[in-house]
């Protein structure tokens, strides 16, 4: 499969990349791991005239703790996230999502920033980034801004980013004592993407009730979303089986579910309810105080 003609540019810094973006405007695309963009180009669904490769920009490739936050650069690969002791310890659901993306080659090339920027409705990260309330830092000609995960995903393959912006990093508050999180996925059997993926985060209060509940769902509709109905139904409740099931029953509320040969809308919704329940149960198991 042969992409249309394009010109290749290598950026050595974020500044560099922004300058190139400015120069080529709408004709340019950033190239990170290439594992979403190149397949689209080979099918000629994307035909950018200029590719700006940010794969070698070191400042995008760090995982660090800064000011009590875990900060992950846009260029960090799925494998690095899956392997990072810091992420596994403090953002377990994110590491679990990373570990279940594609295969070894994909995980070694694909990046957090690329996945989020691409905003595939069946990508794994968005569920975890939503449940863990990540904050996405964008940098453009006009300066930097931070967008909450909840506001970042706008629609199918569409985010809150402007075309002249770069996704720099995502920062997270590490999960606190008494909090557990988990990501569970039913892979679509052909692509391996999420038919349904659910990330749950639960904090237990001193009285043993659910103080905070966050649920991110991917694969169901045109974009990943926070299952607000589930969160509010369980908040303040004791984490008993009935309460969890009743809350999880809201997982697909108000969502216009996708329907394809792999799962009808009904079945996707049902999977979302079951996986939400199971993800919450798993997060609860990890809530050791």
């Amino acid at each position, binding site marked *: *499969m*042969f992409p*249309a*003609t394009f010109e290749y540019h290598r950026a050595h810094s974020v500044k560099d990349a922004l300058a190139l973006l400015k120069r080529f405007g709408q004709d340019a695309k950033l190239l990170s791991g290439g594992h979403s963009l190149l397949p689209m180009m080979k*099918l*000629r669904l994307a035909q950018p005239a200029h590719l700006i490769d940010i794969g070698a920009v070191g400042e995008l490739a760090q995982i660090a703790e800064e000011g009590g936050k875990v900060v992950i650069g846009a260029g960090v690969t799925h494998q690095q996230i899956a392997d990072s002791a810091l992420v596994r310890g403090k953002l377990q659901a994110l590491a679990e999502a990373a570990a279940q993306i594609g*295969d070894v080659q994909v995980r070694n090339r694909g990046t957090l920033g690329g996945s989020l920027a691409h905003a595939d409705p069946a990508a794994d990260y968005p569920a975890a980034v939503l449940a863990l309330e990540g904050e996405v830092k964008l940098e453009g000609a006009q300066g930097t801004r931070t967008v909450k995960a909840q506001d970042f995903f706008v629609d199918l393959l569409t985010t809150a980013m402007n075309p002249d912006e770069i996704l720099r990093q995502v920062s997270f508050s590490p999960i606190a004592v008494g909090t557990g999180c988990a990501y569970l996925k*039913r892979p*679509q*059997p*052909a*692509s*391996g993407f999420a038919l349904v993926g659910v990330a749950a985060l639960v904090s237990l209060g001193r009285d043993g009730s659910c103080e905070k509940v966050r649920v991110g769902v991917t694969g169901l509709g045109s974009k990943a979303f926070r299952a607000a109905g589930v969160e509010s139904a369980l908040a303040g409740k004791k984490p008993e089986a009935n309460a969890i099931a009743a809350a999880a029953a809201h997982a697909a509320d108000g969502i216009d579910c996708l329907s394809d*040969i*792999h*799962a*009808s809308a009904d*079945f996707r919704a*049902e*999977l979302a309810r*079951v*996986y939400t329940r199971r993800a919450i149960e798993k997060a609860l198991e990890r809530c050791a105080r």
Partner: protein
Amino acid sequence: MAALPKFIGQPIRRREDPRLITGEGTYVDDVKLAGMLHAALMRSPYAHAKISSVDLSAARKHPGVICALSGEDLAGRLPSLPCVAPAQNVPEHPALARGKVRYVGDAVAIVVATDPYTARDAIDLITADFDPLPAVVDAEKALQPGAPLIHENFGTNLAAKAEMTPPGFDKAMSEADKTLKFRLVNQRLTPTMMEPRGVVAHWEHGYKQLTLWSSTQIPHLLRSQLADMLKLGENKIRVIAPEVGGGFGAKLNVYAEEALLGYLAMELDRPIKWIETRRENMAATTHGRGHVTYVEVGFKNDGAITAIKAKFFCDMGAYLQLLTPAIPSFTALMVPGCYRVGALAFEQNLIFTNKMATDAYRGAGRPEACYLIERTMDMVAAELGMDPVQVRRKNFIPKDAFPFTTAAGLQYDSGDYEGALNKALAMVGYDKLRTEQAAARQQGRYLGIGVSTYVEICGIGPSALLPPKLKGGGWESATVRVEPDSKVTVLTGVSPHGQGQETSFAQIAADALGIDIDDINVLHGDTAIVQYGIGTFGSRATALGGTALVMALGKVQEKMKTIASRLMEVPPQQLIFTNRTIALASDPSKSIPLQKVVEAAYGYKQPIPGVEPGLDASAFFEPSGCTFPFGTHIAVVEVDPQTGAVKFLRYVAVDDCGKIINPLLVDGQLQGGIAQGLGQALYEETVYDENGQLVTASLMDYAIPKAQMVPAIEMANTVTPTNLNPLGVKGVGEAGTIGSTPCVANAVMDALKPFGIRHIDMPLKPEKIWRAIQEAKQAKKG
């Protein structure tokens, strides 16, 4: 030098692997010739449409484009693509569509350019106007009155019909205590070999010779067909099948691109390459299966089958490829499986649809039959409340009944079905498992145990079994050349593409000549080097090609013994080959180095009366019958009733492929086969929507099982040799695929038994299972 071991039976690692896994093999795409051009095809986006116009002017003007042609341009210049199998209605099959397109992916135009990017760019510059016509996607509907006609000239969408109702059938059916009727769907599949197809054609004008590299399973058969189409002598076409990255039957064919590239290389007098993309592979390389079957089975209260009737609707697709209409006949022949089924009647309707043609796919007709009979056994067991194993035992052909002629008229060579079954039951711990299953059900866990006892037809096969229009029969060939330095070249007419004959044939030759396998080079897949051969398909390569090799080795041995007997002054009958010598059987210390004999044959300083110089021999083996390997597969699964997911707990496979040359190769063939077979049971399905659009057009939507979706397989063998060839081998290339599909389906159905569910059509996707459970619960409530 150390004594040499015997090689046959040893788990010797594939000698072809080091070059393949280090990227040093040569596939078609690795062939690069000076001045080589590149071709790309424009394919139909419609399932069925009139072609009003194809405007190639912009494409032709594009810099770097050498030529662009549509079907009309080729009219009268390239004959129809061949279908050699008999059918009442064989349509014209132009290499580029003329007048109408008949499936999504039908080739409309070809562009040849200086590089593949330019060729691809030029495709976008073609403007073609189509008038869409209603499409027929469902084979059963295609036979209904008023269905759109795919080939108007036939006045029907029926390609062929075959029927057989033997005398006494009705009586056999009437002797049944009970009958069951059900419908089974054996869904269409996409073969999905690792390497898509590819062709390089090179016309050497000065020599008037065409060399064609193709990723094919049948270099010689392809050469014969191309010679006809291109009007060249067979001695002026050289077909080379270099490394071939899998075929599974889909490269047992003659494709439009092979003819087009050959033709254009001659026209343009330039080498041309075409490499299929994965999307083209999914749309325009043959598919497999695609049967709907209505089964009626009559049986006694003790489980004995008295009669089976099967009515098939077989989806041919839009055209008939090389063997398309022949594949369902293997299904009809194998319906009885390993059972005495009383009487068999069948009707087969071979039907055109607006889809890619079907043809051989791993198993080629036998998986459909095995699924039919093995699901039938479980249906009968469920109806009678019997254990499925008991029903099988009741109907087995006993081991002392061979050779046995089945209700379909085939003669099975040998078998011990109870033996394989008993071994598999012991390995899996069947009785204990049934107890565990009962206990699990009490806890709301749904375990299922599925058994299939399969038999299949291999070593295809006596020439009479192959279509008359195929040039070349059901035999196979080999040449053995002992070179002047005693190294040995084996030329085999089979065309391995993953099966490992470079290893197993070297094992056979090494033992025969008493030499090391490293002294043997096995060559194949080049019609200018190898004598005419038939190729690799129908699990035939070792049973037939291996036997031809044994025969050729025998001729060389005879000659070497004659020479040695002169040199040693002992009678030739007393000589054996051992440890690089020819020795006296009664006293191997009395020997002569092989090299001395070879020198005598080539040096010929002392003429040997009655013995010509040189040392090589060829042999052609025509088998007297087919071989019938068999086995028992048992799958243990757990179904998650909340999500319909199927999880494997165990998979036991006991296979009997006769004598084993190399157990690693046998295991490898079975493991790959089982993966593909369970793929059909659980995941795979070629989906066209109601307009004939291909939905499973890429691997993002067509679900082949990945490594983590395949269970660890516990493998064992029983060995029941055939007496139809001197090696005692039967064949193993397709057995895994054939045995595994019904085994997995039966396991899932067994798990769902507490819900009262009897049958769900494949692939057993979670949603179908979940829905069936919901409906069963609903029905119970209601």
